[in-house]
């Protein structure tokens, strides 16, 4: 494979149905073989640019201005020159079996059949995915899915590899493994990586480009120059720069009354427990961080604590201060009774969206509890989580980071006494991260109990959270 050159000249893109431009006035020249870390605040158009470079943004999906090219030609006519890995790892899977899925790209590019098997084996080896070729793609863990997605692109032997947050869903151990696999496997190709965790990549790229929300390039140069000299101003613009997190750790709060307790609790679905039994207590004003590797059962535990899944064994017990006259077992409460008691933010925000616009989405909860002044509360929440500009957008069309913010906002809108959140900081830029920490600290100070499933140690420390580490299943 010969590395590809990627060029944007006054390029801009506006998604269909949106008033503002996702990217505008972008001038950028990426030389063949360069390794570029692409940064920018949430909503700065990083994913949009990657998709356009891969040639998968269609004319019916929005308006384009200026020019974008790969090796001098239109990316849409150069299928296969750039290989794109989409943000959510499972979104990249096309076929039922691992080997077939990796071969899919080769087939589309008309690689002779006798050479495909070799390419599949080489790509899987390069990313370190050692499962049988006939393994079902839906039986893979998050980290394996991510490796599979990258292998599917590598097998195409593209001139440019475009990765959208390739390590975001991985536990810290998996992050370094996948990064090293990517670096080893893409030697000789142009590489563009979008990633919030700058520290993971900064010593392994030639160049850092920072997109400005609303258009243009905010900074461009060597990692040392961009992250060193300009680091402070980038941090202020929401870019994650190495160094201490935007909010320092805080000591554990003085906890108030007991609200929710798990006794010898085994969580699981369909009657089989995912992890071992746990005991925990959530008190007013106290934070608990649930940590542990992918697949340890963190999300299932969260759903069980939130009164959504029945315990496989043991009990979730709501104290009288939380139950307020209801039974002690939250899973037996009515749905509406949960709203003001236990809020839950899911790992996949899309499952929770119910309304056609962001504004209506935020009003669902308050309406269900028949709260007064719904509109004012919604406006306040829009401002607090920097969603005001998107108030009329469809929740499904938001960027990954924006969707996550919205799902947190929907849970907060009904002011529950206990808040259970699954990966709340995933995909957030530094400003929003800080805003989320402030928000949660405010909730803790006001006496809300917070249980957060997270890989983000900084976030756990910033909340002064007690730590519960689940072991791998």
């Amino acid at each position: 494979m010969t590395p590809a050159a990627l060029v944007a000249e006054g390029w801009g893109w506006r998604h269909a149905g949106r008033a503002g431009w996702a990217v505008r006035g972008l001038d950028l020249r990426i030389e063949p073989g360069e390794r570029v870390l692409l940064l920018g605040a949430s909503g700065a158009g990083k994913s949009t640019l990657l998709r356009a470079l891969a040639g998968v943004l269609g004319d019916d999906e929005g308006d384009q201005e200026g020019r974008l090219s790969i090796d001098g030609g239109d990316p849409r006519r150069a299928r296969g020159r750039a290989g794109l890995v989409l943000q959510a790892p499972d979104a990249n899977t096309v076929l039922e079996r691992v080997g077939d899925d990796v071969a899919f790209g080769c087939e589309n590019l008309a690689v002779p059949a006798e050479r495909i098997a070799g390419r599949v084996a080489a790509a899987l080896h390069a990313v370190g995915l050692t499962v049988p070729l006939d393994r079902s793609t839906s039986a893979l863990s998050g980290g394996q899915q991510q490796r599979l997605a990258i292998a599917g692109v590598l097998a195409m032997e593209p001139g440019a590899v475009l990765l959208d947050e390739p390590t975001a869903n991985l536990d810290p151990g998996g992050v370094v493994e996948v990064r090293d696999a990517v670096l080893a496997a893409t030697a000789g190709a142009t590489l563009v990586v979008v990633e919030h965790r700058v520290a993971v990549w900064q010593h392994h790229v030639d160049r850092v480009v920072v997109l400005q929300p609303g258009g243009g390039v905010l900074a461009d140069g060597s990692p040392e120059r961009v992250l060193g000299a300009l680091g402070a101003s980038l941090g202020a613009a929401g870019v994650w720069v190495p160094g201490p997190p935007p909010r320092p750790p805080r000591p554990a709060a003085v906890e108030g009354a007991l609200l929710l307790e798990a006794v010898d609790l085994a969580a699981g679905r369909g009657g089989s427990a995912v992890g071992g039994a746990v005991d925990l207590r959530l008190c007013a004003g106290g934070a608990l961080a649930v940590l542990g590797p992918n697949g340890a059962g963190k999300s299932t535990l969260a759903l069980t604590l939130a009164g959504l899944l029945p315990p496989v064994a043991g009990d979730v017990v709501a104290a009288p201060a939380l139950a307020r006259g209801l039974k002690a077992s939250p899973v037996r409460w009515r749905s509406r009774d949960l709203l003001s008691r236990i809020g839950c933010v899911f790992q996949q925000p899309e499952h929770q969206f119910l309304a056609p616009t962001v504004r209506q989405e935020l009003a669902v909860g308050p309406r269900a509890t028949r709260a007064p002044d719904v509109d004012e509360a919604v406006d306040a929440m829009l401002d607090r989580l920097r969603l005001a500009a998107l108030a009329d957008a469809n929740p499904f069309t938001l960027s990954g980071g924006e969707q996550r913010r919205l799902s947190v906002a929907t849970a907060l809108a009904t002011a529950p006494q206990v808040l259970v959140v699954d990966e709340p900081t995933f995909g957030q830029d530094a400003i929003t991260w800080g805003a989320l920490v402030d928000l949660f600290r405010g909730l803790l100070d006001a006496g809300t109990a917070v249980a957060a499933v997270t890989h983000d140690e900084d976030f756990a420390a910033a909340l002064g959270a007690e730590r519960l580490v689940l072991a791998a299943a």
Partner: protein
Amino acid sequence: MTGLLARAEPVARLLVALGFAAVLVISVDPVSAGTALVLGALLLPLAGARVRRVLVQAVPVLVAAPLAAVTIALYGAPSGRTLLAAGLVHVTEGSLVLALATLLRVLAIGLCGIGLLGGVDATRLADGMAQLLHLPVRFVLGALAAFRLFGLLGDDWRALALARRARGVADRGRVQRFAGQAFGLLVLSVRRATVLATAMEARGFGGPGPRTWARRARFGRPDLVLALGAAAVLAVAVAAAVLAGTWNPVAGLRG
């Protein structure tokens, strides 16, 4: 599993099942259907069909066939000696024979069809449809990829149920709740399909040029054996019916 069925092309299995059904549909008589059912039940396990799985998958057929037969026995076109008459119910010798013929025919087509197609691999079926039947690649592979998502619908449905409970909208009546959740699933499915289309394009799918196939589909000896076997079973069944004098092509085909 190294039976004949496993070695045959899924497309061949599909074509044989269709041909089998087409021939049995021609005549409504107990002899041809009964012979085909008995021979099919004897031969399919030899070809590698798993009896247990076939019976489990055939539960709807096993339930529907007797119901259809009873209905025809009670209300079918009367002919021959009347055995029972009460109001609309009119059981005659002719309606009983027709009921038996219907029962056997539904069972023969249903069980043999499931036996032939049970456990067929969707990926290989799609390979065959595109390479052997030359159906449009976009359609076949699009359907195949969508088929995989179909399997994830169950997970989405369960997640939606929990998510809607967390959002406070799961208290409404059962019908309303189901409708709301079904709509949510529809929205989510459209969303997933859009993402899937992007993922497929990102891997070069839908380009103007030709495409190669990592898995080569071609007809071979197992397919020939399967087709000849099915043809032999049908020939015996039809011959038996003709000899027994029950061969009775449905009116439209008699000319």
